């Protein structure tokens, strides 16, 4: 019975803490009374300048610097590969998908893009001009090393 009581107390404390944390976040994101329906924010514009962004760390999947509206990526066809596959990059001058995309999980090379890398947008995403909701506290590894 005593253990039961302790468990309930801990559970209550955790729940209260979570609720307080959540309400704090909601207040910063919402910026309005809870019962009031806010106007939806404007749609952000997708970056379409074809200029590569710096990667935050070496393994970061590069972002997509152009619009991909209506690109069909499914069982039938992968629109991204119409420009980014090895075969066509000379004509399109688009960056070729990296060599890791032609490897299966055992490191064997394949003739075409590996099925596990087929859905580009699992890792690569477009960027928009939306204002960040929260400040980004990411520190680049170079800055981190300099700070030591």
């Amino acid at each position, binding site marked *: 019975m005593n253990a039961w009581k302790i468990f309930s107390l801990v559970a209550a404390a955790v729940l209260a803490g979570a609720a307080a944390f959540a309400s704090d976040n909601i207040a910063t994101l919402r910026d309005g009374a809870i019962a009031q329906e806010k106007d939806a924010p404007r749609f952000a514009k997708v970056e379409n300048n074809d200029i590569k962004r710096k990667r935050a760390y070496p393994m970061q999947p590069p972002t997509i610097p152009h619009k991909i509206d*209506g690109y069909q990526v499914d069982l*039938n066809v992968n629109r991204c590969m*119409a420009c980014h596959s090895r075969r066509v990059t000379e004509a399109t001058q688009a960056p070729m998908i990296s060599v890791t995309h032609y490897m299966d999980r055992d490191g064997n090379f394949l003739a075409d893009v590996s099925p596990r890398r087929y859905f580009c947008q699992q890792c690569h995403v477009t960027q928009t001009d939306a204002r960040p909701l929260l400040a980004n506290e990411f520190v680049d590894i170079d800055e981190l090393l300099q700070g030591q």
Partner: protein
Amino acid sequence: MKAFLLKYWRIISGPSKHYSLGFLTMGGFVMGIIFWGGFNTAMEFTNTEVFCTSCHENLYAELQDTVHFTNRSGVRAICSSCHVPHDWTDKIARKMQASKEVFAWVSGSISTPEKFEARRLHLAQNEWHRLKANDSLECRNCHQFDYMDFTAQSQRAVNRHSTALASGDRTCIDCHKGIAHRLPDMSGVDMAGLD
């Protein structure tokens, strides 16, 4: 049979016994307007979205996701904008070809979505060949190269439009396949206008 035809030939080749020349010419003129107008109206009805989607409702649903259905300026294409030539003689030729498609409809050769998907690459290739042969005429009915402002296009678009398209080496459909439809299995089909 021969006597029957001969009788009618005599009536047609002989002069009118009861009707005046004025009545016959004016009557012919009025009936001409009615029949010609009726024919053209009926043919134009087969160019309407209502007519197309009475069978192709699945394609209409696909079109709704694309820029040719909804976009910032509100100009849109309907089926016939791209699939039927706008000039009258070409239009009649295409409509005559389409009689084969009516036969396919009657015989039920593409009566289910599964049958349609199975034939989809073949059907799409028919249209790609047609547009390749006429230099993407139906695209160019709206998208006229002479009035394209490259400065308003993205760099990627300028790179392709100012070179391969401008020189006539490539035509719209070489790169813009599946612009208003979902694509079929494209393995082995050139998507970047290379071939």
